């Protein structure tokens, strides 16, 4: 559906707007029938004048009876500016552009689907049913890959639909490239002088270029800013005129990737010496930026034989959980700890969102970012690696610092040290494996509780899944914190993308679209996505199920269907209890009952295969197997499981 249909104008007003838009786009060599060419009103408030009835030519065009002008099939623009914009995206390696269609970016949309050979590849247009879904898809993709995905937003309305998702990605320090279309000549309420201003306080960078050339540079700059720490969403507002402008001989500027600052050589020498001189060094690994950072962290740990902690059970881009060096090690008295996005004897911690406070020009003061705002903890990734002492923090990106440290370690290495390191590494490996088996044994003992109960225990959902995917290349895309977080104890998170972590800002409506974004990444990498989906969360934007089906994404959705926004139920029950006015109405506004929602049917209406609701725990395992068979064929699958609350 066109966005314009959402606008509260009657059909005549709509046609009037279309006519004035066509006439107002002075830079576009589009033929406008004389009768349609009306003078566009200038400035704000131009839509206040009641729209006249449509004239005959407008009605004729609306009926589809308009023909191109005589003299051939000449295109309005031989080399439209939007082709160059798409070429920039292609050069940047943008795989996907998600959007709910909107006329303000119709030039870019047409270029994505028609420009190049083959068209609609790198980037591919992903059809979203809501802008909040588009941006959360980019959020999930960004966490799975460490790279930005693009989302197109339609004018002021698209940006505001997307606002919540932008906010979450911002808090999650996840890169995303947002392009907002603007059409000053169409529906007045859809455009604004400073459209990016609506989300400026929670985007990292934005621009509204005035020329086509500036637009191309701005897209490149937006990409650079998004992937430079602190990583965050960025936005470019591009006028429709620039998208449709004839580019002529204009060339796409060469892209220069950013050089992200790491520690200086002196600090690298000091850290390398600390790691090599220590009897029992430790590396505490938080959330790095990209898979390359994880690879370098592994390389460093293996070089120095350090035991490591990981944040891989809390989010992406951290140390492999089953790596032999990951764990407490053979000796838990660490005499030097290097923190990578973590505290340590020396902790390398990249810039926080607080460094972007100047963009909050109206001093909204978001909690955890602005000083003195919240009683709760600060925002930012990192996770709790554990075991890291308080020490000196160097405000520098850890990932960008690793190559210099590794070089210094190699330079300072001696054969004697190598022998010690080999011996220490072997002891760590043995100790860590023993600790791991002991921890797993304890975890299984705890999670057998309610094994045969109905509704099905959440622990059983995760336990049944693990043997089925242990040898697959998988992504757990949905937050598990409301589902018992059983993956943290039962599964091994060995890839940078194994677990994508929480919502970012704790907002609901994240799990399903983020899983679709992860599944976009998975599709081109031959991976599968596991989405243990809470029911309350899915109901914010269930249309993403259609997107998953339409684009044939490898996503298994297993409902954690407790028929409630369960944490809120507990909150309200508590309030009812402490006020002593009865807890039997605590379900009002917190539960999804009367009627229960059937998620298999919901998926089916979007064309997705599935089964359920399943209440018998014995039937769970076979259903999961069927689901995985489907997903490995590229067909998403829905299993509705009625579960215990947590």
């Amino acid at each position: 559906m066109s966005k314009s249909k959402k606008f509260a104008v009657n059909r005549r007003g709509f046609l009037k707007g279309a006519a004035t838009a066509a006439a107002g786009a002075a830079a576009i060599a589009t033929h406008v029938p004389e009768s349609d060419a009306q003078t566009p009103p200038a400035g704000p408030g131009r839509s206040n004048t009641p729209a006249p009835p449509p004239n005959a030519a407008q009605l004729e065009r609306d009926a589809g009876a308009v023909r191109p002008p005589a003299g051939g099939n000449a295109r309005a623009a031989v080399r439209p500016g939007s082709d160059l914009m798409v070429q920039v995206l292609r050069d940047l390696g943008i795989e996907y552009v998600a959007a709910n269609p909107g006329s303000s970016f119709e030039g870019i949309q047409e270029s994505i689907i028609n420009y190049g050979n083959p068209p609609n590849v790198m980037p591919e247009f992903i059809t979203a049913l809501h802008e909040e879904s588009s941006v959360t898809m980019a959020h999930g993709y960004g966490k799975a890959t460490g790279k930005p995905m693009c989302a197109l937003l339609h004018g002021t309305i698209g940006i505001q639909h997307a606002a919540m998702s932008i906010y979450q990605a911002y808090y999650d320090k996840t890169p995303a490239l947002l392009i907002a279309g603007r059409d000053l000549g169409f529906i007045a309420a859809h455009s604004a002088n400073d459209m990016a201003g609506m989300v400026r306080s929670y985007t990292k960078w934005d621009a509204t270029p005035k020329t086509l050339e500036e637009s191309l540079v701005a897209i490149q700059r937006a990409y650079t800013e998004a992937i430079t720490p602190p990583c965050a969403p960025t936005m470019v507002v591009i006028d429709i005129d620039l998208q449709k402008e004839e580019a002529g001989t204009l060339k796409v500027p060469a892209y220069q990737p950013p050089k992200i600052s790491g520690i200086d050589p002196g600090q690298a020498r000091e850290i390398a010496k600390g790691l090599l001189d220590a009897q029992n060094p430790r590396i505490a690994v938080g959330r790095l930026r990209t898979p390359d950072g994880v690879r370098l962290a592994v390389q460093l740990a293996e070089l120095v034989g350090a035991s490591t902690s990981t944040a891989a059970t809390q989010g992406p881009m951290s140390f492999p959980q089953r790596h032999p060096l990951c764990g407490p090690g053979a000796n838990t008295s660490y005499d030097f700890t290097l923190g990578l996005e973590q505290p340590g004897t020396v902790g390398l911690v990249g810039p926080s969102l607080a460094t972007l406070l100047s963009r909050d020009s109206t001093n909204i003061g978001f909690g955890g970012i602005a000083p003195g705002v919240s009683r709760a903890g600060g925002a930012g990734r990192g996770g709790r690696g554990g075991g890291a002492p308080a020490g000196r923090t160097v405000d520098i990106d850890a990932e960008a610092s690793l190559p210099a440290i590794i070089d210094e370690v190699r330079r300072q290495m001696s054969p004697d040290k190598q022998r010690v390191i080999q011996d220490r590494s072997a002891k760590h490996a043995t100790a860590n494996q023993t600790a791991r088996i002991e921890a797993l044994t304890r975890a299984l003992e705890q999670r057998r509780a309610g094994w045969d109960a109905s509704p099905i225990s959440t622990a059983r959902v995760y336990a049944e899944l693990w043997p089925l995917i242990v040898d697959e290349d998988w992504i757990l895309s949905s937050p598990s914190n409301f589902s018992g977080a059983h993956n943290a104890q039962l599964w091994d998170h060995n890839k940078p993308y194994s677990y994508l972590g929480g919502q970012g800002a704790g907002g609901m409506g994240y799990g399903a679209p983020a899983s679709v974004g992860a599944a976009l990444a998975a599709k081109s990498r031959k991976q599968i996505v596991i989405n243990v989906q809470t029911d309350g969360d899915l109901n914010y934007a269930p249309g993403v199920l259609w997107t998953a089906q339409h684009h044939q994404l490898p996503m298994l959705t297993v409902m954690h269907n407790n028929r409630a926004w369960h944490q809120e139920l507990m909150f309200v029950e508590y309030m009812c209890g402490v006020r002593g006015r009865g807890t039997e109405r605590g379900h009002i506004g917190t539960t999804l009952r009367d009627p229960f929602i059937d998620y298999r049917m919901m998926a089916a209406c979007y064309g997705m295969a599935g089964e359920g609701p399943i209440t018998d725990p014995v039937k769970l395992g076979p259903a999961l197997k069927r689901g995985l068979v489907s997903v490995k064929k590229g067909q998403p699958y829905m299993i509705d499981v009625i579960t215990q609350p947590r």
Partner: protein
Amino acid sequence: MTTKSSMLMFVAVVGLAAPIAIRAQQGATPAAPTAKPVTALTSPVTGNAVTGKKLYYDHACYSCHGFNGETGARPFVPNWPANLATEGSFTAFLRGRANLSPVQPSTAMPNYPVQSVSDAQARDIYAYIRSFKSAQPTVDKIPVMNQILAAAKKPYKQ
């Protein structure tokens, strides 16, 4: 909607097994026994379990204790806490819960004064709770768990 608080709050849940440390400020009935959990209860049950089942659902007891008392944040089957030793201790426990002026949202167990849950209703809930049976085989009888352990013992692959 947002969750209003982090999941960390979840770990702060004070369930049936928690000590009753703040009873005094509420002028509640005497503290329940503090004996260690037991695996079987034999005290008399006088309530109606059928009525209790509805009350267990209506008052959302399942939200923290699961639908059979064995799952969730505060399970109590099969290791029954001392608060559940008798009808009397259970009722006393319901009456003496929680801070009455909370500032922040909490998932702690609510207080249940008599105007919320009568003594008779408490006995009915107790009767239903006492009907719960453990549904947990030992680990060695669960094939999936054995597969998980076996997988963990395999060498790590990059």
